[in-house]
């Protein structure tokens, strides 16, 4: 049989992929170049399975979500009607799965931190497995923009400095307005003392002793 099956096990998660080598691409007998099925078993939840695009959607959501959690950012990944969505749920995480078939109800799986770590390790292992010769979606890990990181600071803490600064400016401005202005007095020229604006200049032709 040419059918290959590989399994990636963690304590609370097991990912299994099945497929065939793509001989037209020069794959070896042990390689998987065409994915025929995958199954994901998470302890305490129903078994998941689907097509390759579902597995790719899972990767596109779970791995970036974990990247955000590494930076301490708590935010959902995926939109409401996307096939896969990760949502923070208190101290836990919720994996929402929406089937493309209308008769299949949506499924939510509650994951704790340990299960989330297990799940991402299974996906990492699959993506890093040289025997599985599939081009998985590229996921680039970049530093987060500053505005994302600001969200992890509590709102009160974020607003304290600008509010204090603004209040200080207002208080100082009010105090400045309350200070009485000094009366402006026009200068009075004195009658007796006339000031000769011209500087006496000695005659350059005069000798030193005659000055």
């Amino acid at each position: 049989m040419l059918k290959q099956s590989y399994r990636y096990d963690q304590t609370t998660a097991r990912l299994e992929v099945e497929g065939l080598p793509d001989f037209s691409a020069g794959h070896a007998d042990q390689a998987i170049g065409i994915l025929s099925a995958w199954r994901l078993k998470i302890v305490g939840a129903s078994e998941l399975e689907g097509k390759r695009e579902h597995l790719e959607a899972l990767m596109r959501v779970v791995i970036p979500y974990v990247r955000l959690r590494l930076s301490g950012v708590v935010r959902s990944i995926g939109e409401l009607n996307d096939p896969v969505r990760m949502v923070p749920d208190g101290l836990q995480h919720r994996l929402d799965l929406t089937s493309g078939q209308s008769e299949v109800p949506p499924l939510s799986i509650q994951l704790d931190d340990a299960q989330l770590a297990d799940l991402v390790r299974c996906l990492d292992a699959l993506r890093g497995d040289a025997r599985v010769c599939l081009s998985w979606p590229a996921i680039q890990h970049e530093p987060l923009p500053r505005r994302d990181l600001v969200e992890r600071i509590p709102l009160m803490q974020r607003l304290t400095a600008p509010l204090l600064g603004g209040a200080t400016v207002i208080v100082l401005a009010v105090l400045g307005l309350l200070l009485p202005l000094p009366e402006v007095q026009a200068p009075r020229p004195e009658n007796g003392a006339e000031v000769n604006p011209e500087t006496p200049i000695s005659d350059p032709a005069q000798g030193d002793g005659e000055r």
Partner: protein
Amino acid sequence: MTDANAPSALDPTFPEAVLGRRALERLDLLLLTVESLDLNGGEAMLWATRQLGFETIFPNRVELWKRRCHNPLRRSTRRGQLSAVETEALIRILCVMADRLYPMLHQLLSSREPEELTRQRWALVNQRLRDLIEERMNLRRGAIQRFLGSEPQDPMLRQLVLTLALAAGPGGVDRLRASLLDPTP
């Protein structure tokens, strides 16, 4: 394990990651958390260094310690920045160590473990980390004082352990590097 995919120390594909002050503090604190989880952590780090082929960068424990002393919160801190190669080597060592300690990290983070047992495990790790911080860090620094003055159930320790769990394994290196390169908010 990560070692199978470990590139050589002089791999030109190493990304040019130069860490800022906060990231250096965080990286060293994560390594310290590894030591608080593994009583033989110092030796294990040396073993990981050899396993990854980083002997030319860190030929002995003193050189490894000197690089970690770039953390400005250290009692005996060193000026300057870590080079990109040294940074990458420390990140990879940390990920290998996290991979090795993963069962313990899993136990700590799992909500399915008995509550009392989990509480005692966290208390033990917390105490070990505090002891290490008191021993090696500059206690006059505000950040250190805040950590030592925090409650045992402080979310910061959980975030450190969670970071190690999510960065463990081959895929964790890129994630952790990107997270360390985050700008300071």
